[in-house]
Structures are given as structure tokens and as C-alpha cells.
């Protein structure tokens, strides 16, 4: 049986994201949507597996803004609804986020933001708790996998009580940590609702919005006041000289650090689950008799900023520390926290561990394009075509597995800013660069997410560029979620969707030169790129190449034969293991190539790449 459907009372190991999904089921959600993004993807991924059984509508939406709007609409129709995204995804959805606070909700509406401190799989490590202060939306943070489930369920009630959206903030070390969870009761989901017309509330024209804003300010005061009474926050040991306010996962690190120091009884320990707004009256009462407060939180000093404000407003004589002692970037580390708390409490501890430096320099092992990945022959052809055309090129890159093209030997990403920025930034490059040609490289899922408006801009404002859409027929990096070009179901309620092909979109917006190539045909691909670069000399509009070949991990091939090296023919040129850089081909000490049969998947592209015919099938 799927873990998410196990009965009440079961003790089970769940991933943080699975716990959030289960928590939503225990609240009876009827609707959930997301665009995949690490570390948030498993929430919707897991819900989708069981959605049809429970009659829920669960979907992968085309981007976070659409996911947000869809889930929000369900909520204002009285259906409990969840939307999940990675931290940077909330930027995409920030437009509806802001105004959703003005209009509020009917049924519980929970926005999950999975932040990525230390940027394991992201372009920045923004702390989305700021969005709570910015948008007047309360933010809650669980400290453990169990609390991730429990809090999610509770937040639906909270949201409904105030008819207001709430943000559940997770982090990588919570979303992607498995922990032991005791399951609660599943309740019957309600997935159909009614929309009650009320333009004064649901139509945010200026006249209505001005009134809504006044109401919002009052509601925010009520929420702040109510949060002080919530039992989600707790404390132990009153009136100690030192108080530690530990929010979200910071609490788990703090408890362990205090246990290590055998100092748990020496501080007033405040566990905070509601980080925006702070439970003002409650927290004043907890810290007013302390001399020092240390704030432990992962990300920016969001709680620290608020507590300093409160202490100044109240005129309390309490010294506040936080990011002045703890690192301002990356994730929390137990060792650093133990030292910091020891310093604050004047506890003597042993010097730091010696001998951490490594005398042998070990090269970084970057993730690489897999053996058989269609992007490798594409990048190989692209680099050769650029070289043969003798043109200078700026590669405007984007976000996906193909971003790995930034590394040697291809180095085909000169910029990566955000989802869709390849074509977006090419709109600027094309108009200001004199000599260089602009090549925008964008993945299929990214194209649907944010590439299309940028392409329309390019055709209408006449920005010459070569756009290469890398179509591997899946959203590979986040775990093979479907997109509208795949023909596979993206939602629990539409099982036979009609494909929306990139070539139809591209032709539909008026691109005149569209080529579809199979990157496994290296020389044909090279020829088409070369021809396109030449055409750009006298064109004022974009050319689009769609490089189509399924992701090798998603749709593995089973070749009859795998390639072999004819050693007598190999002259150690290194093209296969250096320029083509297939990880399944290794350099022997003699310089000759050798195929690692365990890694080779038999795509046989190296056979075409070898100029000496030294690789045969």
C-alpha cells in the first residue's frame, strides 16, 4: 500500500515532503498543484500517485504562477487546496501571492515554499519568510518531519479561520530528510465547491483594493494577536539569563547542541513554529527577564529582525544576537552552533577538531551529462558548428540538466539567471552586441514554463537569435515529470491529454525558420546549426532549432551491440574522452581510449564522433 494511505497510528519512515503531502490529506484537501523544483517536487509527485483513488484533483501545472492561481481558485470555491514550489518558484508566483492576501480565501489555502539553503540545486538561497512580511501572509516552519505533517494539517484550519492564505516554509534538510512519523487520521476529501459572486472581494480593481487593503491591515493585527495564543510555539525553563529563540529546523539543531553541551536546563528555550508574524505578546513575556537572546534560524535573520523591532518598541534591555554570531550564508551546522552557544553561555569546550585540511588535492566531481544523454552530441555539434562558422557567440543559458553544459569541455552557458532567461536575456544581447551572435539554449519544460513570452517578444521586436530548444520529452532534472509536449497525463483528472508540441507553438507565434533535428545524428545537427548561424547574418528575427531525443534515463535504449575500440586504429587524439567527454570512455595511460562497458549504454554516437573509425559496433 502507498505510504500516504496507511492507517492512523502507523509508525513509518517518511520523507519531509511526503509528510507534508500526508498532512494535507489528513486535512481533507481536494486540490493540489505545483511546478516541479528541487527540493519541493515530491509533495505533488507523491499526491499524484494516489489522487485518482481519493478523487482529488492534483496536477503539475505549466509554471508556479499558474499552479498558484489554479489552487487559489479552488480555495475560494471552498475546496481545501495546496500549492507547492521551490523558493525561486515563489518569485514566479509572487504576483498572485501579493493580492491573494488582499482578497483572502474561503477554504484553507496552504502555500508550501521549499527553500534551498546552501543551494544544492538552485541559483540562489533566498529566504522566503521575507515574503510573509512583504505580503501580509503568515509563515510557519516545522522543526521535524513529524511536525511537517502535523503543522500542514493544522494550517488548513488556521487559514480557514482567518480566511487567509498561509505559507509553510520548508528547507532542503527538512524536505529531503526522512524521519519517523506517526500517522494521523485521513479524512474524506472534498474536491467540489461553489463560487459565490462578490466583486467587491474577488475583483481587485483599485476602488475595491483600497478597501481590501484597509481590511488587510486590521486582519493582520488580529492574526498577530491570535498567533500569541497558539500552542504551536512552546518554551522550557522560564526566566533564565540567556534565552534562545529557535525557529523551524533551527530548533532541532539547537536541542542537539544543548544536549551535547549538557546545557539544556541552563537556557530559556523558545521553540518557534510561527516565524511571521512573531507571537509578540507571548514572546515578550518569555524574553523580558533575560539579559541575552540568541536567535537560531536557517536562512536570513528574519526572526532576529522582528525580535529586535519588538524589543526596541517595548524598550526592553535585552541584548539580541543571531547572524552576528552565526553564518549569514549556507545552512546551519551543529559544530558551529555548539561553539556559538558555548560562547554565549560561557561554557569552556575543547578546541576545534585538528587536522581537517586535506593534503592531497582532490578534483571536484561535478555532476555530468549521463552516458547517452542527447545533450552531449548536441553541444558537441554546436561547438563544432560555431568553430567552423568562425563566429563569436554569446550562449544565453537556462535551468535544467543541460545547465551542466557550463562545465568543460563544452562551456556553452555564458549566463544563467532564472527560468526562461535564455530567450529573455537574448532579447537584450541581440540589440546591444555588435559582433557576437546570440544562441539561446532552453530545455523543453523550461520553454513551456517561461520561454514562450520571451520568444514572442523576440519575433515582434525583431531580435535576431538562434534558439535551441532541447526537447528530451520530460522534466529530467527534477525526476521526469511530464510537460505539455509529452502527451502523458500531468493531472489526476485528465488521463489522455492532447500534446502541445513546441514546433506548433513556435510556428504559431510566427517564427519562419524552424528546424527539428535528432541530436544523435551529430553531423546533420551540426549542418543545421551551421546553416542557421549563417542565416543570422542577414536576419532580424529568431531561428528555432528543436533538438528532439528522449532523456536516456527516462527512456533507456536497448541496443543489440555496444561499441568497441579498435586499438590499432586509435591514435590517442582524445576527441572521444575529451572533446566529446563521454564518461563511459576512459583514457588509458597510453593515451588510447577504452570503453567502460559497465557505464556504456550503447548509444553508439562515439562511433560517428571518432575521426579515425577506431570505434566500431
Amino acid at each position, binding site marked *: 500500500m502507498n505510504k500516504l494511505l496507511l492507517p492512523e497510528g502507523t*509508525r513509518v*519512515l517518511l520523507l519531509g515532503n511526503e509528510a507534508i503531502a500526508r498532512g494535507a490529506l489528513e486535512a481533507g484537501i481536494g486540490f493540489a498543484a505545483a511546478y516541479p523544483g*528541487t*527540493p519541493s*517536487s515530491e509533495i505533488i509527485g507523491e499526491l499524484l500517485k494516489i489522487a485518482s483513488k481519493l478523487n482529488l484533483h492534483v496536477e503539475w501545472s505549466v509554471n508556479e504562477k499558474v499552479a498558484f492561481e489554479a489552487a487559489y481558485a479552488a480555495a475560494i470555491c471552498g475546496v481545501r487546496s495546496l500549492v507547492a514550489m521551490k523558493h525561486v518558484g515563489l518569485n514566479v508566483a509572487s504576483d498572485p501571492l501579493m493580492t491573494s492576501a488582499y482578497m483572502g480565501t474561503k477554504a484553507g489555502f496552504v502555500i508550501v515554499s521549499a527553500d534551498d539553503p546552501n543551494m*544544492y*540545486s538552485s541559483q540562489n538561497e533566498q529566504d522566503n519568510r521575507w515574503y510573509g512580511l512583504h505580503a501580509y501572509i503568515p509563515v510557519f516552519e516545522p522543526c*521535524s*518531519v513529524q511536525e511537517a505533517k502535523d503543522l500542514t494539517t493544522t494550517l488548513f484550519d488556521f487559514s480557514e479561520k482567518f480566511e487567509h492564505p498561509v505559507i509553510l516554509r520548508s528547507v*532542503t*534538510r*527538512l524536505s*529531503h*530528510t*526522512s*524521519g*519517523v512519523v506517526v500517522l494521523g487520521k485521513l479524512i474524506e476529501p472534498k474536491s467540489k465547491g461553489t463560487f459565490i459572486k462578490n466583486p467587491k472581494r474577488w475583483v481587485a480593481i483599485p476602488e475595491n483594493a483600497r478597501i481590501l487593503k484597509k481590511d488587510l491591515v486590521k486582519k493582520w493585527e488580529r492574526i498577530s494577536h491570535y498567533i500569541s495564543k497558539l500552542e504551536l510555539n512552546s518554551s522550557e525553563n522560564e526566566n533564565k539569563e540567556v534565552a534562545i529563540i529557535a525557529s523551524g*529546523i533551527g530548533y*532541532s*539543531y539547537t*536541542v*542537539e*547542541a544543548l*544536549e551535547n553541551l549538557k546545557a539544556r536546563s541552563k537556557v530559556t528555550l523558545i521553540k518557534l513554529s510561527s516565524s511571521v508574524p512573531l507571537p509578540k505578546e507571548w514572546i515578550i513575556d518569555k524574553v523580558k527577564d533575560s539579559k541575552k537572546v540568541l536567535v537560531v534560524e536557517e536562512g536570513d535573520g528574519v526572526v532576529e529582525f522582528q525580535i529586535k523591532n519588538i524589543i526596541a518598541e517595548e524598550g526592553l534591555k535585552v541584548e539580541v544576537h543571531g547572524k552576528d554570531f552565526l553564518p549569514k550564508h549556507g*545552512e*546551519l*551546522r*551543529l*559544530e558551529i552552533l555548539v561553539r556559538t552557544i558555548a560562547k554565549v553561555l560561557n561554557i569552556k569546550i575543547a578546541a576545534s*577538531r585538528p*587536522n*581537517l585540511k*586535506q*593534503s*592531497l588535492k*582532490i*578534483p*571536484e*566531481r*561535478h*555532476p*555530468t*551529462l*549521463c552516458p547517452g544523454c542527447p545533450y552531449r552530441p548536441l553541444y558537441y555539434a554546436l561547438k563544432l558548428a560555431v568553430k567552423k562558422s568562425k563566429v563569436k557567440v554569446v550562449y544565453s543559458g537556462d535551468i535544467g*540538466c543541460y*545547465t*551542466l553544459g557550463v562545465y*568543460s*569541455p563544452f562551456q556553452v552557458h555564458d549566463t544563467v539567471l532564472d527560468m526562461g532567461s535564455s530567450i529573455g536575456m537574448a532579447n537584450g544581447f541581440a540589440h546591444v552586441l555588435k559582433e557576437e551572435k546570440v544562441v539561446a539554449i532552453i530545455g523543453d519544460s523550461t520553454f513551456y514554463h517561461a520561454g514562450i513570452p520571451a520568444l514572442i517578444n523576440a519575433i515582434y521586436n525583431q531580435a535576431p537569435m538562434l534558439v535551441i530548444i532541447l526537447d528530451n520529452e520530460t522534466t529530467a*532534472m*527534477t*525526476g521526469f515529470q511530464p510537460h505539455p509536449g509529452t502527451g502523458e497525463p500531468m493531472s489526476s483528472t485528465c488521463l489522455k491529454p492532447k500534446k502541445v508540441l513546441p514546433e506548433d507553438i513556435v510556428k504559431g507565434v510566427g517564427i519562419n525558420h524552424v528546424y527539428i533535428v535528432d541530436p544523435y545524428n551529430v553531423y546533420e545537427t551540426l549542418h543545421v546549426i551551421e546553416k542557421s548561424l549563417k542565416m543570422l547574418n542577414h536576419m532580424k528575427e529568431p531561428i528555432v532549432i528543436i533538438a528532439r531525443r528522449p532523456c536516456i534515463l527516462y527512456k533507456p535504449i536497448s541496443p543489440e551491440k555496444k561499441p568497441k575500440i579498435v586499438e590499432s586504429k586509435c591514435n590517442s587524439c582524445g576527441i572521444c*574522452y*575529451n572533446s566529446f*567527454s563521454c*564518461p563511459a570512455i*576512459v583514457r588509458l595511460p597510453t593515451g588510447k581510449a577504452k570503453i567502460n562497458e*559497465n557505464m556504456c549504454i550503447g548509444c553508439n554516437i562515439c562511433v560517428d564522433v571518432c575521426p579515425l573509425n577506431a570505434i566500431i559496433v
Partner: protein
Amino acid sequence: MKDKLDVLLVGVGGQGVVTLARLLSEAALKCGFNVMLAETRGLSQRGGSVKVFLRIGKVYAPIFDVADVIIGLELTETLRNMYYAGENTVVIVNNRLIPVNMKKTESKKLIIEKIMEKSKNLEIIDAEGVAINVGSIRSENIAMLGYISTHHIFRSISTCIDAVFYSSKYAKIRENIEAYKIGRKLR
């Protein structure tokens, strides 16, 4: 086992580090212990370095700084993570070297020497050899699991490792069963 056991598992994406860690965590849960398992997913798995934190027993934080045990499926990755080794850390490493693409590779001998500079308790296991002998390199993580299931440091969960492995989907593959059995005899 003391009140807790912190295990760091490292290797190269595709070697089955996460699978090995999940089987161990399920075993610990089955034996009644509290468990936390912190992984990194997404971009980090495409043939890059993989590092997983497994915590068993009375623990709170998802990650730690000093491991009680380091399980390495690959030598370079084990050396790279030796700053997690304390004075008494046990290091169990697969005698396999996967070269870093397009970079100079040091010899196994030198890497092992460097690991030994940081650890007195090094155990080198030929899980790669076991896997190749049973006919599938993909079984090397299971060969390691077999070895671990007989190791004294995991004795409080050893019977559960057996039970969890044999009831998992991995035990439906002949090579895995053989690798597990041979792994158990390596001690």
C-alpha cells in the same frame, strides 16, 4: 550501540548510495530505533559526488559533523569526506576508484594512504570484485550491505538488515542475493 550512531555514506551518483542508506534506515526503524536520513536530490545526482547522512537513535538535527562510521562506495569520495572522521570513526570503504572525468587520477595506493592518515580504523572491502563476480556492477552496494550486516558496529540492527533486504524489491534480483551472501562472508 551507544545512544546514537551517525553514519555518513558517500560515493558517486549511480552507485546506489541512497539505496544502501534507505535499506539501513528501514532496518533501524524495524529494530525500533529513531531514524533520520538526509539526502540531496536533483542536480546533485547526475554522476556527481553523493553524500547521505544517516542518524540512528537519540538525535535531533538532520546532519552531523563527526561520523561514527563512514561507508564509502568509492575511494576518492571517501577521502574527500574524511573531514567527517573523528578519532574513533570506523571507515568501511569499497576498494573501487572511479576517475573524475577529464582530471588526473591518483593511484588507489596513494588515496588509501591518505585515508589512513585520518583514520586508524579502516576496513577495505572488495565490493566491486564481488559485484563483478556475480555479474552486475550495480550490486556492489548490496555486497557492502551484506558486509555491514555482519559488522559489530551495526549488531543491534543486523537481524533487521537481513529482514529488510530479503523483503525488498532488491532481493528479487539474482545478482543482488548472491552479492549480499558473499558480502556477509567477507568478514
